[in-house]
């Protein structure tokens, strides 16, 4: 047995909270200030236990007639032989024994702690570039959506206004980041939010064209919802990856479940709110200046024949 051991006070999950280096034996454990290891645990006696080396050189922890005793694996025992990894408990304090030759996990390099691409974006210039790009794309989008005269300044103010929401979002993530991982990482969070805005704005025309061409297809609703849910999940995953607290699998799980719950509730709400209008009524609103020749049209007879089913549909609503 080594001449030096470390006693780690661990939390419930086994993560170390404090470490004590012990090299002189006997070493005592208790609440009084005469001990080698002083515990602020009201369930620990003033002189609770002692670590001794026997004649063979082995280390033991022994109960010193304490009120609450010494435990190993939830069994009250008089003494426990100590080796690397041994766990024992006095009062409400759990100890784990470590030795100097204990193997530790390899170092995590800073670059690997977050996603590769995001890391580059997380640099000051990368994040600012992403943010600026988001503002520009947003301005272009606002310009194309507007049909009144607008000045560049108005567009800029509007898009900055919208982006301020994402600034707040990034701040919230940075605060969370600080709480759980001791650093803010504001720029990476801002960069991620900006990339998300750009992606969303670029995806939008695609969905609008889909609506323009295939509006009658109800499955489109579902495709769109699933796509949105996936998008939100990816965003959450990205933020969690920057924070870097949980494993990759967990991140997907958390992001996926959160997004599914959000969209589940939205869908449920729409289902429950048996609206004044059919959702289908909102769909054909998308009119596009291109591809009219490729529109899959039908003649009036076919259209009205298909519309006959509406009668049964509203009749059943009325009979309810």
């Amino acid at each position, binding site marked *: 047995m080594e001449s030096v051991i470390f006693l780690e006070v661990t939390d419930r999950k086994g993560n170390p909270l404090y470490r004590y280096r012990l090299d002189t034996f006997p070493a005592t454990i208790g609440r009084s200030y005469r001990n080698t290891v002083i515990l602020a645990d009201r369930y620990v006696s003033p002189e609770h236990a002692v670590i001794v080396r026997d004649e063979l050189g082995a280390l033991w922890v022994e109960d010193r007639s304490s009120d609450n005793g010494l435990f190993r694996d939830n069994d009250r025992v008089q003494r426990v032989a100590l080796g690397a990894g041994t766990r024992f408990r006095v009062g409400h304090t759990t100890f784990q024994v470590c030795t100097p030759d204990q193997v530790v996990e390899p170092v995590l390099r800073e670059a690997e702690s977050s996603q590769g691409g995001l890391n580059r974006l997380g640099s000051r210039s990368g994040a600012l570039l992403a943010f600026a790009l988001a503002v520009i794309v947003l301005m272009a989008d606002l*310009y*194309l*959506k*507007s*049909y*009144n*005269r607008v000045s560049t300044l108005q567009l800029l103010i509007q898009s900055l206004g919208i982006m301020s929401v994402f600034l707040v979002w990034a701040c919230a993530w940075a605060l969370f980041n600080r709480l759980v991982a001791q650093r803010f990482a504001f720029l990476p969070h801002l960069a991620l939010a900006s990339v998300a805005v750009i992606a969303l704005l670029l995806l939008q025309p695609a969905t609008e064209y889909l609506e323009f061409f295939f*509006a*009658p297809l109800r499955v489109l609703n579902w495709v769109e919802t699933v796509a949105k849910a996936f998008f939100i999940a990816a965003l959450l995953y990205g933020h969690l990856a920057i924070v870097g607290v949980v494993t990759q699998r967990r991140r997907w799980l958390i992001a996926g479940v959160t997004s599914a719950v959000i969209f589940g509730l939205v869908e449920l709400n729409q289902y429950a709110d*048996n*609206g*004044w*209008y*059919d959702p*289908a*009524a*909102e*769909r*054909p*609103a*998308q*009119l*596009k*200046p291109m591809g*009219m020749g490729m*529109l*899959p*049209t*039908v*003649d*009036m007879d076919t*259209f*009205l024949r*298909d*519309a*006959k*089913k*509406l*009668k049964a*549909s*509203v*009749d059943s*609503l*009325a009979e309810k």
Partner: protein
Amino acid sequence: MTHLRWRSLLYAAVILNGAPVRPLGAQDPASSATPAIFRRYSDHVSKIQVSENASGAKSELGSGFFVSDDGLVITNYHVISKLVLNPDRYHAELFDTRGTTRAVTVVAIDVVHDLAVLRTEPHGDGFFNLIPVSTEQGTRLYSLGHPHDLGLSIVEGTYNGLLQHTLYQKIHFTGSLNPGMSGGPTIDDRGEVVGVNVSTAGNQLSFLVPVDRAMLLLRQAQNPDYSIPDNFLAVVAKQLLAYQDVYLATLLADSGETTVLGHYRLPTNPASFFNCWADADRNDDSPYEVVDHQCSTDDYVFISGEHSSGVVEFEHRLLSSKELNRFRFFSLFSDQFRMGGSLGPGDDEDVTPYRCESRPVNQHGLTMKVLFCVRRYRKMTGLYDAVVKAAVLGERDAGLLTTLNLSGVSFENAEMMARRYLGSITWNP
């Protein structure tokens, strides 16, 4: 046009407190015949009150007049509509000039002309003998009723002929009819009933149902073979269905009138009972132009306080812009095509939500996105509201939007109208 419903008293009071235009006749000393007419005929007229059963609170107030010696009374359908639609929740009473109160029951209704025949126990009341009358424009008339529940009143006015632009005849009466006078008679100085008070547009502009409609309904009620229906709701539905069959039959038929908007030839003024108007918005501040053309029936059928029917309206809107690029123009086009706004009266109790079908349709070589939405009257089988909306595509800097609203029509007629309406849109190079 406001129906003379007692509940709209507050609203009416606001309008009527502003100094109304005085009719020419009001400058003259009151006709000396008026007190005599009032004395002679006031016992023919009574107050009709509809009350809620549970609370006993009065819910609707109007007037009515005796038309037979066996206790038949004529009033407006809208006075007793609550009793007709919810017979379990309401009851009606009649208050005569002697101050006695009598229960009344509904015998017959004419929803389209807003008339009803009621029965009460006879009590030696005087009554009007309804006969056809011919009246000259300018004839002095006297309207009797209970305005705002203030007691029986007599209002002088003049006969100004029949209204133009209505599907069914209505008399234009220049005189102040007020809420509560609904269902009262308007008579000439010989005591002949000319019409039944029905609605007002304020400022002495009032309307009467001609007496011959009341005579028809009375004759029906007095027919020995006539039996009082168990379910008046079904009668309402049947009358509305018959009504829409009549007025839709010739509407928008092939040879109809058309107007030109941009490159499109479009239906307009489909019948004499329609009113059409157009408006162009060419504003220097706006990078696009809007030209509107709207047509609508002037009249509607009262069903209940929240629900009415029998309105056909359509609107063409041409959007164009030289300034906007095509993406921005189509943003405008899409936004204007979006469904929304108020689409006809009726709340959740009266009508179902809309259900829609939409498709790009090719018609006469025009490509249009068509939206066809219907909803049903909950309590009346066979009656629907329909909205037909189309965006005509094909130009990059101009687009046509057109909307047809139908209320209280059969599903088959809604289909037929959608076909005729969209079919009458053609390209006009």
